[in-house]
């Protein structure tokens, strides 16, 4: 489990996060949602240690992440996988080399064992046979899946996804969502997803926090979204008139 305690982050005079206290649970897809500029990406970067907080703590289990020395931070990071918004695949490496990179760097596996592990991860994300392709030769959806394969190759305890559906068509976005959800449950990973994709919220949101101007204004699960009267949530989720009509109809039927 990951826990944040009164997390504050300022850039100069601007305070982006104003005291975030929340928990992210294992085996569940934990979603951070909010409008652009709400502080989602900053919160995610704080969770993985790419930013340092101005104040507050991030707990990985019983360990205060920001009180650790560099060696201990690296040890925790080996339990972390991350899927970036733009995938961040190493473009001069093939798909296989990308997925194998963490194994090459941190394990003493034989080449045969590495290949087996890489193939099993590629198979898990339905990319069998794509080993020798370069990222530039693959579609956006495939790149996301390679990113997921690379993120899970070391069997992480924690998986972070920064807008995993951005730039994907709705069908592919659903495939990616389902893949992340399945892997989370299968491996009992603490998955934290930063998104503003409404399908994701309604399909895989086990534990959702809504950020508004750097504060948590709502928390709950996908099942509670429809019933919630929270003004910010409704304004965010059902932004278009079409979705507002759908919600009204759904509430009427229920």
């Amino acid at each position, binding site marked *: 489990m990951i826990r944040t305690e009164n997390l504050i982050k300022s850039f100069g005079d601007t305070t982006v996060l104003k005291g975030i206290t929340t928990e992210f649970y294992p085996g569940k897809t934990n979603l951070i949602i909010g409008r652009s500029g709400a502080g989602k990406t900053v919160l995610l970067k704080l969770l*993985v*240690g*790419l930013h340092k907080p101005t104040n507050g703590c991030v707990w990985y289990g019983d360990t205060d992440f920001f009180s650790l020395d*560099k060696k201990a931070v*690296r*040890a*925790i*990071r*080996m339990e*972390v*996988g*991350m899927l*970036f918004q*733009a995938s*961040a695949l*190493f*473009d001069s490496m093939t798909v296989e080399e990308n997925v194998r*990179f*963490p194994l*090459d*760097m*941190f394990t003493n596996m034989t080449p045969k064992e590495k290949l087996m592990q890489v193939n099993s991860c590629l198979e898990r994300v339905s990319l069998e046979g794509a080993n020798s392709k370069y990222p530039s030769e693959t579609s956006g959806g495939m790149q996301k899946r390679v990113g997921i394969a690379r993120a899970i190759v*070391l069997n992480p305890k924690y998986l*972070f996804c920064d807008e995993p559906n951005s730039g994907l068509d709705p069908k592919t976005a659903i495939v990616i969502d389902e893949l992340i959800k399945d892997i989370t449950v299968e491996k009992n990973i603490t998955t934290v997803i930063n998104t503003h994709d409404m399908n994701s919220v309604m399909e895989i949101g086990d534990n959702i926090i809504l950020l508004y101007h750097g504060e948590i204004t709502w928390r709950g699960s996908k099942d509670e979204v429809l019933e919630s009267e929270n003004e910010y949530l409704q304004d965010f989720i059902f932004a278009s008139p079409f979705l507002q009509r759908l919600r009204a109809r759904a509430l009427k039927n229920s």
Partner: protein
Amino acid sequence: MIINRFLAHVGRYFQLMGTAIARPEKTSMYYRETMRQMNDIGVGSLVIVVLIAVFIGAVTAIQFAYQLQDSFVPRYYIGYIVRDTTIIELAPTITCLVLAGKVGSNLAAEIGGMRQKEHIDAMEIMGVNTAAYLIMPKVLGALIMIPMLVAIAAFVSILGGYLATVPVGLISHAEYELGVRSYFVSYNIILMFIKSFVFAFILTSVPCYQGYYVKGGSIELGRASTNAVVFSDILILLFDYLIAVVFT
């Protein structure tokens, strides 16, 4: 303000270099990367270094022959001057100034591109010491290969001086050979290698620093690349002077 910014850069540069000198997570990965850099920096620069060295030697020899016209200085001094100016100054300094342009801009663009495409963040999150993995092999590769390139440049320069003067009859083969063999001070070779090592470190570490901390987009990347070359060149010339003062 400018001094504060300068000091902040110097502090951050030394901090980065401190982080870069660390025990590798996996020696084989660093070894492979160092080999790649040795190939890129060393073998990849051989042709341009040889080409420049030939002309440096040739021009030095012809200029000196011109200055010796109608003088009482023995003509074999052409070989002597070409050898010493090449070894002490021209081979290490000109070669490294050229390499700062070729290798330096390339390194800054490579690391800067990785920063902008979040490759460095991805590696950090995996637990990789990115400063060490991205910088150490490059610096190490340069420290091994650049002194070799400079030695080759010195040899080729002397050969260039020969080709520019002997076949056209400005000086005889025996005179040039006598000049090259005269008053040889082996300490000059040590000086050449001291310069090569220092310049090699500068022309890789400064561009790596520029690339590692790049922000923004393609304009900033281009600026970082330019800064890498400019600052490397300035530092090479500054350290050339300091080495000359301290070691001679």
